[in-house]
């Protein structure tokens, strides 16, 4: 690579450079100022993410950098903005919570920054090698933050479980990649596609494809690779769960979209079967397994498994509408998740005790009517009831599936969402029609801000849905 090419590459990856250098600098700040600097480092980390976002917004056009390893295009920019927003809001919600969860350490924001960097590199990966390394960067930071409250057995168990199963999935992913490399002789996505479209489809490539999809399905916690999700969501400190459930999912979905739509585009019928299977399995398990859950974090884990299934419905269609639907779904999913977790973080008794059971929400309409209204909107939206945002998210992916003649998938999806509505409505019933067991302390301003904004987004989606849909379509047009 020439010096000029290297400079051009650095320019294309400027937001990533800002995050990387920011993380290194903030670690120095934390080390020199000690534990008392946690708050400062947290706010500075949000500032670094905001700066990277502003730089990202000012970029346009597309280009390949670092000899084909890194790709900057409209799709990557859109998804990166969503992921950055998710990380920034997750950090923002941590500001007042870190002490309460015994994770008041300056390394936390630094690790989140590095995980965010990993997500951005995942979204931009244009080569099997860069995909794997970016995924590891993000996952490794996620394993550590899951075990952040190291004196808590649940948290360390969550970290260990996540790490061991994550290593297993990385192994499967690598095995698939090596098979694909062995049978195509290429690691770059466009080169793999070129080889496959010139009649390179063979049994070995299909095997590799299935292993790659299995490895990636683990990262988005799709069935049958979902086993870690409920335990990790429940065990990790709630601010960490908030992070794990939002931005990394967006990045992983973006990555899976790019792998199948670019690299394996010539063998669409092959990956479509796999995606349809994991999509149906995730939707069904997400709706049925959540019914018996008593812990609201476990409930959200099963809910997120189900939502990944719905998002994959759009991908299974493999069309412009489908990818647009996936993008919209992930944006709306992230807003709903962040809002729900803001409410969960606010479930704190006046004596400071955190409660996590669904039944603790009983009578919320009497003790905190505003939060009850917001949480009701969130639950209705998660269930997919019009005119809230969650309805449109599901509408677009099912529409794309029907246009692609995947009728069975769409019908099963709609039926699964009816089943899923049951447990969301149970939460609503508890809040409005049951007697209060105890009140909650007044939530912190940051939490109130996040859940209010998220509720506003869901209720007002009819007004902002147009421009957002157009932006998602422009992003999806990158591929078609």
């Amino acid at each position, binding site marked *: *690579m020439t010096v000029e090419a290297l400079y051009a590459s650095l320019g294309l990856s400027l937001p990533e450079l800002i995050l990387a250098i920011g993380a290194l600098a903030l670690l120095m700040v934390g080390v020199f100022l000690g534990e008392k600097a946690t708050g400062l480092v947290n706010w500075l980390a949000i500032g670094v993410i905001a700066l990277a976002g502003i730089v990202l917004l000012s970029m346009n056009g597309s280009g390949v950098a670092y000899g084909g390893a890194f790709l900057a295009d409209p799709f990557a920019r859109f998804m990166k903005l969503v992921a950055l927003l998710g990380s920034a809001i997750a950090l923002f919600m941590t500001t007042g919570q870190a002490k309460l969860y015994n994770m008041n350490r300056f390394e936390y924001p630094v690790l989140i920054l590095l995980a965010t960097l990993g997500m951005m590199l995942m979204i931009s990966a244009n080569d099997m090698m860069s995909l794997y390394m970016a995924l590891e*960067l993000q996952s490794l930071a996620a394993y*550590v933050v899951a075990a952040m409250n190291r004196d808590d057995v649940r948290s360390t168990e969550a970290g260990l479980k996540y790490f061991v199963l994550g290593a297993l999935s990385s192994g499967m992913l690598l095995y698939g990649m090596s098979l694909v490399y062995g049978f195509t002789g290429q690691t770059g996505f466009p080169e793999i596609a070129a080889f496959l479209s010139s009649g390179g489809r063979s049994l070995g490539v299909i095997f590799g494809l299935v292993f790659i999809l299995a490895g990636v399905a683990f990262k988005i916690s799709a069935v049958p690779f979902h086993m870690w999700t409920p335990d990790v969501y429940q065990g990790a400190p709630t601010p960490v769960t908030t992070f794990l459930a939002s931005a990394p999912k967006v990045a992983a979905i973006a990555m899976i979209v790019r792998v199948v739509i670019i690299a394996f585009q010539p063998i669409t019928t092959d990956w479509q079967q796999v995606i349809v299977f994991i999509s149906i399995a995730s939707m069904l398990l997400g709706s049925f397994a959540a019914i018996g859950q008593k812990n609201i974090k476990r409930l959200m884990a099963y809910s997120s498994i189900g939502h990944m299934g719905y998002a994959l419905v759009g991908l299974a269609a493999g069309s412009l509408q489908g990818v647009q639907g996936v993008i919209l779904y992930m944006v709306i999913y992230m807003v709903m998740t962040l809002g729900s977790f803001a409410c969960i973080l606010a479930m704190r008794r006046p004596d400071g005790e955190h409660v996590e059971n669904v039944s603790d929400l009983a009578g919320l309409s009497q003790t905190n009517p505003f939060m009850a209204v917001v949480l009701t909107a969130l639950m209705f939206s998660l269930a997919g009831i019009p005119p809230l945002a969650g309805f449109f998210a599901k509408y677009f992916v099912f529409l794309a599936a029907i246009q692609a003649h995947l009728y069975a998938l769409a019908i099963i999806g709609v039926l699964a969402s009816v089943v899923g509505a049951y447990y969301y409505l149970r939460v609503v019933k508890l809040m409005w029609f049951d007697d209060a067991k105890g009140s909650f302390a007044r939530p912190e301003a940051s939490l109130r801000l996040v859940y209010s904004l998220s509720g506003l987004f869901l209720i007002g989606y009819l007004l902002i849905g147009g421009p957002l849909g157009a932006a998602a379509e422009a992003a999806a047009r990158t591929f078609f």
Partner: protein
Amino acid sequence: MGLQTLFFYLFAFIAVASAFMVVSARNPVYSVLFLILTFFNAAGLFLLTGAEFLAMILLVVYIGAVAVLFLFVVMMLDVDFAQMRAGVLEYAPIGALVGLILAAELIIVVAGSVFSPEIAKTVPMPIPALSQRTNTAALGDVIYTHYIYFFQIAGLVLFVAMIGAIVLTLRHRPNIKRQNISQQVGRTPETAVQVVKVRPGQGL
């Protein structure tokens, strides 16, 4: 040619002999020391074939880090090696089978270029001939240019691993006596020396 052959047999013989000693030595510390000898001779073999970078890495990583780590583990942990070795002969047939499979696979891989000679042409980054450029220089040509992206991300991954290890294990214990050099140096005779008049027969 004669000298090279001589050294090949020297390194190969010591490597095989010390590998045998690794499994047969009674004292586990001797085992680890023989392991280091095996590594060292393997590095010599690499050097003979012109792979000087691998030889250096073997010395630095395997002897400098891994083997020393083994030595620490063996010395620090209370493992009863005699008990562990008790049933070693029972596993010998399986061990031999694994060795045989490994040898067969190695032969197949090395002989791959005989079966399909065109494989050598599809290498994306071919290394120049050894007479033109050494291994280390050839690696340096691409690792900081063509593969700089991967190199940097690998660095960041290791960085996360380091932060993670510290976050999850380091505990700041209060009430531990630590050396404070500036405090030591800053002492003056006034603060350090105290003149006490001791009355006879009374003590302090």
